[in-house]
């Protein structure tokens, strides 16, 4: 292969810094090849198409501009054999995690870029796999395995013009993964070299990291007693023992060791953030927080900063006073709370009191903590059902009414109570609203129509919100009649804002908090407040105006949301659109009130019933806190400055949540405002004041102590990439509201590069500049960040609708770490690899088409989607036992239910699907995808290590790019 000869006649050093063309600004920005002629890297043959947004997939964007010689395919393998031919090359199911040093790896069929980019595969070294050997915490080996760089070529500091190959080397160290990219300058006449490429197996594997963490930390409980401990990964199953710090199920931090000074923090650029899930559900083995009742005086707090009593408070003067661990204020201990101290200065009763010994606990709130100084009434649920033509025709209304009849028996209740305290109400609507009086004394429900949508009000007081068991007969009669009453409706127009307004007013009239369940089908175009117009415009994508697609059309919904929050009215929205409904606008109120949005595009009862009903059941039954206020207090030195999630903030400190359930997460970012002390560390206290579903006002307190460091290495050693990604994704997803998507992406890349460059500069042992060195805790940062960058919101494919993007955007905003982890890097599980008998989940494989073998079946899930991919040459027996058809060709593509068959494989697969679904907060609809089928495109979208059709880079390409960025920063 000799392509360097034909390099453009531009002086090699004409540019101060070599530009990796594929990542060149201009081409990144969608001007393919404009700089190609001037770049010295003819061998690259144009930008990596992975970043070519406007070029059709599979094309050589710069072919026509490259010198003729570069057009020649470098090797026969470069001209990718299409389709199954490539699979044939490897035999069935051979391509796996293991390295393959002898056989030329082929990217997925049809992906040509690598055909023209000769990358030398690094000969695998036995040490390559060693970085994963000892766990970082125990292994303090400092041996730099630099000698393992086996490529004999001398790496010049700056790559000259010519044929440049990048190779990566792995290095194991105490704290980092060293990847050494080498730039080869091949002088002289072109010699056909064996095509080289970066070995995907040599770069950090998420699968490996997850597996290792599972193996190392899954076996014993995580005890929270010690300050600054990094918890196991979210993908690891582990038990938590609360010994003074909040469980990682409640709070996870980007780093458990934070720099003492803001200068250090700025240098590292590692965001300091905590992902807090105050009402997280716990596994049955772990006890839920104890409820502490401090009697009439209410919970004990610091007089100055109002922090709540917690294990970190220091009792002094024989127990008569205590010093606040957050603000150092010295407070008197009230007489009724007095207790003697033991010889260590600890209160004698420390272990009898949850607030002195545990990280998480609850206080009973006194009346001072209640709105209007009145104890709250039990909350209410209001079901608000769209009965316009679309909703009736799709069968939604009938299905929903039928389901509600039984679902109402499962309203959330507290503790061991027989009956839920929650009252229910019903509203149907199209362009007018129908309220129902379902008072128990009535023989028949009464309908009250309010057509004055411009000025919504609640037409009745008594009989709208009722106790289910008392009014059961009337409610049943109502739910029976609703589908009949509107069966012949021809009303297609709907209103939206007035519906929420009505629900909110109803709660206001009843003087309680509550939740609205809205079932809505179409863009609200009827004349009313909050009327919307169809403004979907794909032409805006990649323009400065793209952000408008994410912004609400009108400010009316924000105003409405504010009123809802004031009333403690949480809105859950179930959307059933057939076309554009402007999710960006409709989801404003759910978003700001701590509600959820569910979207079922083109809802058909036959296909989507299970998914919808499952989500509905879960949503109705889940435990919710209402009318909540969350406040995060920190010890002096840092301060919570930014918040991400589904809530409303009217000032800079209080997170107001009309409703908060166990799935909702708030990400909080901290900044220094002073020096921290290594000795005392940094403390977080998250206090959530809420009304339980029985109407009890409570405070839930989570405490977490973190270490502080003066050495950057300590910071990097105690980071959590998953949490980091959670923060960065939320940050970026919020950014698209205000900045062009491209700017947001660039910011992310820059920040990532800075983090890694800082590590390289300050923590890693000196090595050649050509090396890419990643901290051990962050070695997955590039791959995960790449997934964020190519997600639908930041880089939409052609098939992604504006609504989808807005939907995902708001979904991610309140995701916890586990959810973002799997959402951005889906799990791909081979089903037929491991023996059928094994009870455990099969080990996942990396999300790349390379890892698929056409003789296998795979499950892919990302928390929202679930695919079953069937290779074209799967054994007939397998096909038969899973699908009950005799051959691959007979499998229905797009099938969403597996037949229930009595054989081990079928049982196992269905069992696995069920268990996957059980892990996620939303029901994942199964889609069976056949290899080479049309639907496969959809599936491939989730193979995130590969280059995406929409222009997202492959893992390898991105790593190269990241390395280049880091080098730029370092030089």
């Amino acid at each position, binding site marked *: 292969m000799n392509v360097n000869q034909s390099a453009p006649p531009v002086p090699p050093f004409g540019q101060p810094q070599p530009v990796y063309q594929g990542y060149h600004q201009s081409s990144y920005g969608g001007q393919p090849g404009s700089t190609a002629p001037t770049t010295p890297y003819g061998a690259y043959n144009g930008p990596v198409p992975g970043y070519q947004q406007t070029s059709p997939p599979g094309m050589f964007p710069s072919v026509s501009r490259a010198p003729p010689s570069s057009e020649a395919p470098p090797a026969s393998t470069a001209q990718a054999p299409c389709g199954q031919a490539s699979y044939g090359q490897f035999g069935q199911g051979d391509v796996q995690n293991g390295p393959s040093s002898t056989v030329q790896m082929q990217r997925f069929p049809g992906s040509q870029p690598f055909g023209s980019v000769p990358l030398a595969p690094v000969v695998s070294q036995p040490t390559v796999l060693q970085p994963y050997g000892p766990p970082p915490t125990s292994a303090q080996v400092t041996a730099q395995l630099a000698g393992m760089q086996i490529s004999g070529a001398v790496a010049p500091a700056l790559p000259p013009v010519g044929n440049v190959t990048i190779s990566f080397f792995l290095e194991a160290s105490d704290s980092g993964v060293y990847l050494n990219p080498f730039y080869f300058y091949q002088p002289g006449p072109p010699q056909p070299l064996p095509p080289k490429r970066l070995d995907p197996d040599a770069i950090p594997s998420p699968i490996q990291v997850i597996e290792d963490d599972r193996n190392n930390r899954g076996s014993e409980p995580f005890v929270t007693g010690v300050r600054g401990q990094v918890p196991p990964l979210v993908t690891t199953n582990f038990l938590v023992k609360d010994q003074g710090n909040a469980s990682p199920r409640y709070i996870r931090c980007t780093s458990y060791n934070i720099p003492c000074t803001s200068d250090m923090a700025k240098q590292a650029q590692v965001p300091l953030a905590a992902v807090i899930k105050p009402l997280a559900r716990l596994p049955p083995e772990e006890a839920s927080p104890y409820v502490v009742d401090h009697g009439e005086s209410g919970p004990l707090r610091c007089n100055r900063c109002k922090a709540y009593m917690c294990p970190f408070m220091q009792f002094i003067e024989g127990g008569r006073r205590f010093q606040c661990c957050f603000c150092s204020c010295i407070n008197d201990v009230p007489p009724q709370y007095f207790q003697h101290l033991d010889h260590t200065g600890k209160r004698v009763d420390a272990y009898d009191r949850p607030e002195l010994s545990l990280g998480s606990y609850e206080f009973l709130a006194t009346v001072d903590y209640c709105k209007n100084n009145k104890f709250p009434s039990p909350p209410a649920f209001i079901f608000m059902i769209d009965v316009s033509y679309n909703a009736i025709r799709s069968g939604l209304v009938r299905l929903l009414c039928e389901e509600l009849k039984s679902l109402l028996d499962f309203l959330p209740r507290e503790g061991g109570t027989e009956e839920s305290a929650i009252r229910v109400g019903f509203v149907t609507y199209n362009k007018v609203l129908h309220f129902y009086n379902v008072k128990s004394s009535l023989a028949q429900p*009464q309908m009250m129509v309010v*057509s004055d949508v411009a000025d919504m009000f609640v*037409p009745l007081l008594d009989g709208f919100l009722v106790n289910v068991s008392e009014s059961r007969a009337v409610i049943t009669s109502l739910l029976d009649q609703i589908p009949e009453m509107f069966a012949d409706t021809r009303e*297609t127009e709907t209103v939206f804002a007035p519906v929420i307004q009505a629900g909110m007013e109803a709660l206001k009239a009843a003087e309680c908090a509550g939740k609205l369940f809205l079932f809505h089908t179409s863009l609200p175009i009827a004349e009313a407040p909050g009327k919307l117009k169809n403004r979907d415009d794909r032409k805006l994508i990649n323009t400065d105006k793209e952000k408008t697609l994410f912004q609400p059309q009108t400010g009316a919904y924000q105003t409405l949301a504010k009123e809802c929050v004031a009333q403690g009215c949480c809105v859950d929205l179930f959307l059933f659109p057939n076309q554009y409904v402007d999710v960006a606008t409709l989801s404003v109120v759910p978003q700001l009130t701590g509600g959820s949005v569910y979207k079922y595009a083109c809802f058909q009862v036959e296909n989507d019933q299970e998914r919808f009903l499952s989500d509905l059941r879960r949503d109705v039954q889940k435990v919710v806190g209402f009318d909540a206020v969350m406040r995060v207090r920190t010890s002096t030195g840092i301060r919570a400055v930014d918040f991400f999630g589904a809530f409303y903030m009217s000032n800079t400190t209080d997170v107001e949540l009309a409703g908060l359930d166990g799935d909702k997460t708030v990400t909080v970012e901290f900044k220094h405002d002073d020096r921290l002390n290594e000795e005392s560390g940094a403390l977080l206290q998250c206090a959530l004041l809420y009304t339980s579903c029985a109407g009890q006002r409570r405070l839930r307190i989570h405490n977490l102590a973190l270490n502080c460091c003066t050495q950057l290495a300590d910071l990097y050693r105690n980071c959590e990439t998953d949490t980091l990604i959670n923060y960065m994704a939320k940050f970026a997803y919020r950014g698209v509201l205000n900045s062009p998507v491209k700017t947001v992406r660039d910011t992310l890349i820059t920040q990532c590069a800075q983090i890694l460059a800082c590590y390289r500069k300050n923590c890693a042992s000196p090595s050649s500049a050509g090396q890419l060195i990643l901290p051990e805790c962050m070695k997955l940062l590039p791959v995960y960040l790449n997934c964020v960058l190519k997600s639908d919101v930041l880089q939409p494919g052609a098939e992604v609708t504006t609504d989808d993007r807005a939907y995902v955007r708001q979904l991610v905003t309140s995701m916890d770490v586990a959810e973002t982890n799997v959402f951005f890097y889906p799990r791909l599980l081979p089903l037929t690899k491991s023996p059928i008998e094994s009870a455990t989940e099969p080990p996942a494989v990396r999300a790349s088409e390379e890892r698929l073998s056409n003789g296998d079946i795979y499950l892919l899930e990302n928390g929202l989607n679930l695919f079953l991919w069937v290779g074209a040459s799967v054994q007939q027996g397998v096909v038969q036992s899973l699908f009950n058809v005799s051959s691959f060709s007979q499998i229905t593509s797009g099938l969403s239910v597996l037949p229930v068959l009595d054989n081990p494989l079928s049982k196992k697969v269905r069992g696995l699907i069920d268990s996957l679904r059980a892990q996620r907060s939303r029901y994942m609809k199964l889609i069976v995808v056949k290899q080479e089928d049309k639907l496969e495109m959809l599936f491939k979208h989730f193979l995130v290590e590969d280059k995406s059709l929409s222009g997202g880079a492959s893992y390898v390409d991105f790593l190269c790019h990241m390395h280049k960025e880091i080098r730029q920063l370092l030089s």
Partner: protein
Amino acid sequence: MNGSVFRTMATYLEFIQQNEERDGVRFSWNVWPSSRLEATRMVVPLACLLTPLKERPDLPPVQYEPVLCSRPTCKAILNPLCQVDYRAKLWACNFCFQRNQFPPAYTGISEVNQPAELMPQFSTIEYVLQRGAQSPLIFLYVVDTCLEEDDLQALKESLQMSLSLLPPDALVGLITFGRMVQVHELSCEGISKSYVFRGTKDLTAKQIQDMLGLTKPAVPMQQARPGPPQEHPFVSSRFLQPVHKIDMNLTDLLGELQRDPWPVTQGKRPLRSTGVALSIAVGLLEGTFPNTGARIMLFTGGPPTQGPGMVVGDELKVPIRSWHDIEKDNARFMKKATKHYEMLANRTATNGHCIDIYACALDQTGLLEMKCCANLTGGHMVMGDSFNTSLFKQTFQRIFSKDFNGDFRMAFGATLEVKTSRELKVAGAIGPCVSLNVKGPCVSENELGVGGTNQWKICGLDPTSTLGIYFEVVNQHNAPVPQGGRGAIQFVTQYQHSSTQRRIRVTTIARNWADAQSQLRHIEAAFDQEAAAVLMARLGVFRAESEEGPDVLRWLDRQLIRLFMFHLRRSPFLQVFNNSPDESSYYRHHFARQDLTQSLIMIQPILYSYSFHGPPEPVLLDSSSILADRILLMDTFFQIVIYLGECFHSGFGWFVLVQTIAQWRKAGYQDMPEYENFKHLLQAPLDDAQEILQARFPMPRYINTEHGGSQARFLLSKVNPSQTHNNLYAWGQETGAPILTDDVSLQVFMDHLKKLAVSSAC
């Protein structure tokens, strides 16, 4: 009508009575002064009281259409006063003298074969029109739910009962209101359905119709499905349904009607959205059945307290406006509310619907502000203390009473047109009507009452509805009417009969002209003082209602003193002292629509005396008539008072002690066989009162009281205070009872009058 009739008063009385019975007309003057100058000197204007639909059991309507004068500006109807040339088959219009051909159907007429309208006894005749769609009557109940439990229960029962009285094909609708307004859909099965409106927001008719879905629904979906058969003939049928179809449904609905559920805190009035409820009722009918006979029946138990038309705020500590407040300009909401109801009343009148107000509450309910709704549309106004009284129950029931033909005594959407011969012009009308603003040749420039037109709309009327119509003699003094000339007036009333037929009633009358200088005696003799009194009183009330300030009072005083109308001056129609604004409005409402007899009772109540001395006798309405041994029966139209005297006549020796009839009654003498005459004495006024109660609409307040009883004030306030605490000369005598008042007595009034008559120039 020939000259000899004028000879004696007796015959004049007969003439007047005969005219009233046949034509429902009573003129102030039955011989007319022949020039404008003379007429103005007469003080009492030439005017008449017309009862357009006076019941005439002897007058079967004719089943054809009237023949009209062909002159476009005249269009008078062929009548007995027309000159007819039987040979040429021509008739001359007696108003414009146009000669008209008879229509082809009249070819057979001759002196002996006359059509009814030419016969003198058919000076009033009724035609039934055959054309025009007949739409059913509509009754829209607008019901206040902010009532006490037993009040609401009583009202519900009355309403349920009324369903059985309605014609089966009548359309009925229900609107309830309290804090909100609910329009009930009556057609639905299963779930009962209602449209709810905020009680605080005024909506335009268009908005109301949109919100009720009365506007044509937009064709949904792109494909116009060749689907469901055309719904109902009326979109509105959801809210207005034939009684026979939904009476069960509606009975249940009314039965389930609950009190307004919104809490009313202590010290507050319930929030009552009467203004919006009426507005919606008007809008509903306006959009669906314009120009069809319809009654909006408003049942309210208190003042409107919110929204447009609110009369008082919901703070109980702020009392509802009094006359005092109004004079001091302290009635905050009055003007705005009045404007709102006037707007509604005018819209309703334009649509030909009428509004009844049934207000039952101990306090005022805002009749003052709402009065125009009933006044302008010809609706009823009923005021009572509670829906749980026989006053309301029987009055309401009487609305649905039937005449000798079995038809409801109600008519709708009438227009009254008055045509005059050229010496006369129409100055105006006073009664339950609105002007149609038709400026014909016979319209005077001087307005008396509602003028500037010779056509009025009367949206709702019954056989007793009476209008005062005022005329002006325009003949110049120097152009005398030829000897024996007669002036003619034709009243044409087109209306929708309760059987839904369109009918026209035509009354044509004529009176002699007389020269005031030479024939003053004739004119004098033909003066109808009763009619004149009522007509003047109407004028006075009209002025008092529509104008303000001392000018009116002065005008009234001047006019009334000249007319010696002592009782009218003291009546609640002009005197607001001691009456709430609502009461005044109520009294005036009825005064402006009742016929002459009833009006006279209103002006000067009738007092009957019952004693052992002889048969009952009418006595002077004077305090001297209040004697201890008498039982008095007073009829003021609005009240029937039975008053038991204080002590028995000393002539009855077997009573040593001074006893009262009341005490005897308490002692139970009436139940002892030996005192059967006492029992009869007690019973007689009761029976008489019952008789009055039976006939009267609205039911009068029936008061059975006794000397010293708190209710005795009703009697005491009416009688002439000839004995008061100021002239104690009669104190202790057995000639009557003193009245504690500062009002002047008739004696003082007369003395004053005499002085005035001597001193003044007139």
